[in-house]
């Protein structure tokens, strides 16, 4: 080791899903030890793995237990170790052809081997089945995937069961989807609304993780075509000029929250938008305008004494790398580090689809990450 290299180590308990490790640097070398796989020697295990930036993104060289079970060597050629620098927005992954989308509530998107996970955010384009039919109404809206049915299907939060939606099928030309790489760098963000349940309180569903906290002060922007314009912060008929805001009173899940606005007499939200209206159509939105909180996140058994903000705000919460802040504050969520993927061990060109670099659920994994001073060549 020389004077300016960087080293870090840590451990986590695998959930079976790709694991993001935030670091104060982007490593050029990573070592993994799956302690559980060492302790319980069994087929499909990957007890250790090594990665160097020279291998390329998504690769790894691994120790692998074959079906013997006998310890062997193998490689991971996709879904291995990759690094990330989440510092700028509006970056996207590769586009993929959409085979179809169900005209249902919620809509299910069919893409061959999409590779997405719950929590990934995607946007779509095209979505015409014919010149005048299809689902162009949802093109350009960012959706955080709500469920993954299988390798070829995922679910988005949108009610496409209305008469103006026509299911997409047979891979329409130009119907594409791509991943939004870093959708949550600054939080909480402006959100597209996909459902509103009116009543003494108002329940709101968003297409992305809303990232609101209880006590968040919010404003609505509902264009006339979508119905519930009475939620809009302006104009205010009683105190002209003063915006009308609501407050989040409970978080239902990462896509749904309840606010204190009594919307019993308000117009029903209308998501059934005609295709002909799509050019130039503005989407209904809800955004943070402040909060009424006075403290930060509450300590938990595994958290720091003064926990930093965590997003999303219902389940699968991940801490930002900054210090504590008032709940509901505008925060910076930029980060860098590496990702341990779910890629399979490939032994002599044959992939073992039951082996995963990130291990199985409940596996305990230790990692070391390095940024070396000298790299040759």
């Amino acid at each position, binding site marked *: 080791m020389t004077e300016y290299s960087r080293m870090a180590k840590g451990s986590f308990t695998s959930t079976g899903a790709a694991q993001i490790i935030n670091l104060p640097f982007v490593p050029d070398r990573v070592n993994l030890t799956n302690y559980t796989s060492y302790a319980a020697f069994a087929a499909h295990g990957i007890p250790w793995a090594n990665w160097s930036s020279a291998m390329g993104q998504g690769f790894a060289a691994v120790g692998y237990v074959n079906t013997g079970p006998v310890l062997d060597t193998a490689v991971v050629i996709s879904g291995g170790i990759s690094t990330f620098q989440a510092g700028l*927005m509006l970056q996207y992954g590769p586009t993929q052809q959409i085979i179809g989308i169900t005209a249902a509530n919620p809509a299910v998107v069919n893409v061959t081997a999409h590779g997405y996970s719950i929590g990934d955010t995607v946007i779509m384009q095209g979505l015409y089945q014919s010149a005048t039919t299809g689902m162009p109404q949802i093109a350009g809206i960012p959706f955080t995937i709500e469920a993954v049915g299988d390798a070829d299907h995922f679910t988005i939060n949108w009610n496409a069961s209305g008469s103006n939606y026509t299911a997409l099928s047979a891979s329409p030309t130009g119907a594409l989807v791509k991943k939004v790489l870093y959708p949550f760098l600054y939080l909480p963000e402006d959100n597209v609304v996909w459902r509103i349940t009116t009543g003494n309180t108002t329940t709101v569903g968003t297409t992305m993780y809303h990232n609101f906290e209880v006590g968040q002060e919010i404003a609505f922007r509902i264009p006339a075509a979508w119905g519930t314009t009475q939620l809009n912060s302006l104009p205010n008929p009683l105190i002209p000029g003063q915006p009308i805001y609501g407050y989040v009173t409970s978080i239902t899940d990462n896509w749904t929250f309840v606010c204190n606005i009594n919307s019993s007499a308000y117009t029903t939200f209308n998501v059934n938008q005609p295709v002909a209206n799509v050019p130039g159509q503005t989407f209904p939105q809800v955004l943070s305008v402040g909060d009424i909180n006075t403290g930060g996140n509450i300590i938990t058994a595994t958290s720091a004494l003064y926990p930093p903000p965590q997003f999303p705000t219902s389940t699968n919460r991940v801490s930002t790398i900054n210090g504590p802040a008032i709940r509901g504050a505008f925060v910076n969520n930029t980060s860098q580090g590496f990702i341990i993927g779910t890629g399979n061990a490939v032994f002599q060109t044959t992939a073992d689809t039951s082996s995963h670099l990130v291990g199985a659920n409940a596996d305990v994994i230790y990692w070391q990450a390095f940024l070396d001073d000298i790299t040759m060549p």
Partner: protein
Amino acid sequence: MSITNTGNLGPLILQSLAPAMLYVPTPTMNYITVCDKISMPANGGTTCRFMRPRALTPPTIQLGNSGIDPPAQIPQRDIIDAQMAFFGTGCIINEQVILQDQEGVLAWVSERLAVAMRQAEDLILRDYIVSAASEINAGGGSNGDNPTNLGVSDFSLVATTLDTNNAYKFMSGIEGMDRFGTGPVRSAYFMLTSTELQSDFDGLTGLGFLSQWNYPTNASALPAEYGSVYNIRILTSSEAPVARGASLKGNDVYYNTVLGKQAITHINQDGYSMNLIYRDPYYSGMLAQNATLAVKFAQAQAITQDTAIRNLLSTRLTNLGV
């Protein structure tokens, strides 16, 4: 007869460094220009808090002759919080570089670090605005996309929205003068947009767009100002946010941020912003081989008047040059 030429008596030193460095292409940084700026005090915690009083109900109902006072009002306020974050980067330069290179390495690296720091400041504000401000999709253009390209009605719509929200304009108008080809400029909000849309703006000449060069006087025009449409003056930059291929038809989507005063606030902490740090090789290892040059700054940002800002999303009508 023998002629001595550079083939048999070449110069001892083949190269000579030109006296001036070449310029570094650097985008115009518009976002910091339009921000309110405040400094959070030292020992002030992690989070900057803003308070905005709410309007009281105007007493439009007469008292009558009962002699009874009307009920008192309860004053209320809105609170906006923003968490401070810290940023920095630097270079480690071996003393042999400083000793042996002909150009002033430390000088130009310092300059580049300073520019990188300023650019980071602007990009952070840019991306925050993309994330946090609400959006209006342009619908006044003719390309049938969602959003469409910008039509003059989009400028009118967004200015009307901000006016209806009682936002404060940045600029007072410029009165018309008796100068050929010029026209008066309205009091205006700013639009921060991409240089890639300049040809679209030129296409609106005669329809509402007035080039900055056609202002009666451009004394108040900012260096990045391209022109104006109705109540909006347009500042362009090559670093303005563009979502590539994100429209209905797969075209680029431009985030044209239209805002009034106090819409965005930039926050530093106790003048911590913008520190350039040089450490002599003396402070490195036992042989004192390496100097370091670095910059760091503290920054937070908040939308402090959500009613005074909109991202007007649009596509582009004209083709791009390459």
